[in-house]
């Protein structure tokens, strides 16, 4: 029997196999707000990938003869103090902010899933230990950590410093997700289909990868998106304080940091407001996607 998604009977009745993924996607597609979020996010990602090379500048370009130009003309968003094109830096910064968000979310998800999964699946002492560990990590502070870690990477090229930031955000934000995954696995373990696996003599491997994981994955996906949104915000905050991504590499956070110059703050709002707006827009769109996914994956409506 070939794998088919639909079988049409002689009577004309169509037997479709609508999987949970299909359902989620259908529901997501029907959710206009979430779709709007997705489209905005995709547009932002495309813009962030496409616009910088289109403008043809490079990070190190500067033009001291044209500082602080107002938007319009050759520089659509004007220039900053070093005569760099604001539009270029805005989108390049976006690239970095989003990258940081993605990497941090990936790290969080990997750590959160593994640790939460192990904790929930094996339980007992190990669980207790890991949850204590999560508690400890949860109460660790960002800023001194960032400084300490950054110092060990003194001569890593500037453009790669962002990885430090994303690594750290990822390393410090997993406990929340780990707890969620653990909780989910604990409830799943109580579900009868897991006991059915045991009764059927299914191997641990299949149990984890065929039964547990697919059921956790939707939770993880939802949280990964929300995690990404919050990682972007964290990065922005750190960079705003001058502890995250540092100039000349732009990021939305350190572009907003330009507002710390009172003159720029008052006279050249185009140097900092767009970064804030883009950041806001991105985070909102990701949050919308996350909410949409949460609704789409809502198990209540599966059955």
């Amino acid at each position, binding site marked *: 029997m070939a794998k088919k998604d639909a079988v049409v009977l002689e009577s004309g009745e169509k037997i479709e196999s609508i999987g949970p993924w299909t359902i989620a996607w259908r529901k997501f597609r029907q959710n206009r707000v979430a779709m709007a979020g997705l489209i905005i996010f995709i547009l932002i990602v495309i813009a962030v990938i496409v616009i910088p090379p289109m403008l043809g500048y490079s990070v190190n370009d500067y033009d001291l003869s044209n500082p602080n130009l107002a938007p319009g003309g050759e520089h659509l968003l004007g220039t900053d103090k070093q005569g760099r094109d604001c539009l270029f830096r805005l989108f390049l910064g976006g690239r970095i902010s989003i990258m940081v968000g993605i990497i941090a979310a990936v790290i969080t998800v990997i750590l959160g899933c593994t640790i939460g999964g192990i904790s929930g699946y094996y339980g007992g002492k190990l669980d207790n230990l890991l949850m204590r560990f999560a*508690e400890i990590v949860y109460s*660790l502070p960002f800023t001194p950590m960032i400084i300490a870690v950054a110092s*060990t990477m003194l001569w890593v090229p500037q453009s790669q410093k962002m990885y430090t930031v994303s690594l750290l955000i990822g390393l410090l934000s997993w406990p929340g997700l780990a707890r969620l995954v653990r909780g989910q696995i604990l409830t799943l373990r109580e579900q009868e289909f897991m006991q059915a696996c045991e009764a059927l003599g299914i191997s641990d491997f299949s149990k984890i990868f065929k039964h547990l994981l697919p059921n956790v994955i939707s939770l993880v996906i939802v949280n990964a998106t929300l995690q990404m949104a919050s990682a972007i915000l964290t990065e922005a*905050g750190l960079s705003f304080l001058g502890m995250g991504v540092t100039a000349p590499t732009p990021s939305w956070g350190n572009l907003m940091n330009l507002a710390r110059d009172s003159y720029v*703050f008052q006279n050249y709002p185009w140097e900092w407001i767009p970064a*804030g707006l883009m950041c806001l827009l991105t985070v909102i769109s990701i949050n919308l996607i996350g909410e949409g996914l949460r609704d789409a994956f809502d198990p209540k409506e599966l059955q």
Partner: protein
Amino acid sequence: MLKYVFKRILAMIPVLFIISIVIFGTVKAMPGDEVTAYFGAGSKVTQEQRDHVRELLGLDKSLPEQYVRWVGRMCTGDLGSSITLKKPVGTIIGDYVWNTFYLNVVSLIVALIFAIPVGIKQAVKKGSVFDNFWTVFSLLGISVPTFFFALVLIFFIGLNIPGMPINGMRDTMLSSFGYSSIFQEIGDIALHSILPVIVLAFSSFASFSRYVRNSMVEVINMDYVRTARSKGLKEKTVIYKHAFKNAQIPLVTLLGLYIPSLFSGAVILESVFIWPGIGKVLIDAINQRDNSLVMACLMFSALLMLLGNLLSDICYTLVDPRIKVDE
């Protein structure tokens, strides 16, 4: 109950202990020299003087020894003294933590005053225009970088309204040379709080209203709400007494978790608004490598975090009669 709390606190000790090691390690791993911080950057001092101070601060000892001494002193309640401010750390924290607390409490109250009715109404009118509007509004609240919002507020409001203070907690003139009355002082602080409270309350409003809404949505379809209706109760009683009373259980838990953060402060916002709070002190201390102050602040917030968990569990047992912790 007391026994339970006691047990929980006992269980916190090893965790705190490990946290203290990590914090100590991290702070010591930060590059930068306490001796330099001690003299202030750029002062011309000889190596001899530096060595003298190094000895004075106990930095000539090995790291484990320093750690043991630090923990030992902490256990006796001595948090050490700040090397940049030359004052006991305990005093410094005591001086600033209340400003943070005040700001956060006011914002929290403002946020709750709006968030609870809005969240409830959203849940009751799920899917309506009202619901959608506030959903988007609160989504905005959790998505906007707070400092950006603060800057925008200052830019558009603070700078344009004469007499609207854009930073600080009091008018320097008045606070320096004395208020004429307590009311003037209160008024002054209130005026200065407007912008920071808007920013903080906006973000807490966002998360709380979402929280209230979601837990109300869960609760509102419960069987007992239907039972309450079937008794002929007024809709208001049904919603507020029966539904909200249940929805507030997770909310109270959340509040329990939130209370410690009332003390720990929003670092960035305090910087932007020059709010004399503990977050600002911490960030300055980090930048200046005032390590004993940094470590004390971090331990303080870690402790608060753990206490928050405990508090939230206690709150839980207090509001929810189903939970009993006699064991």
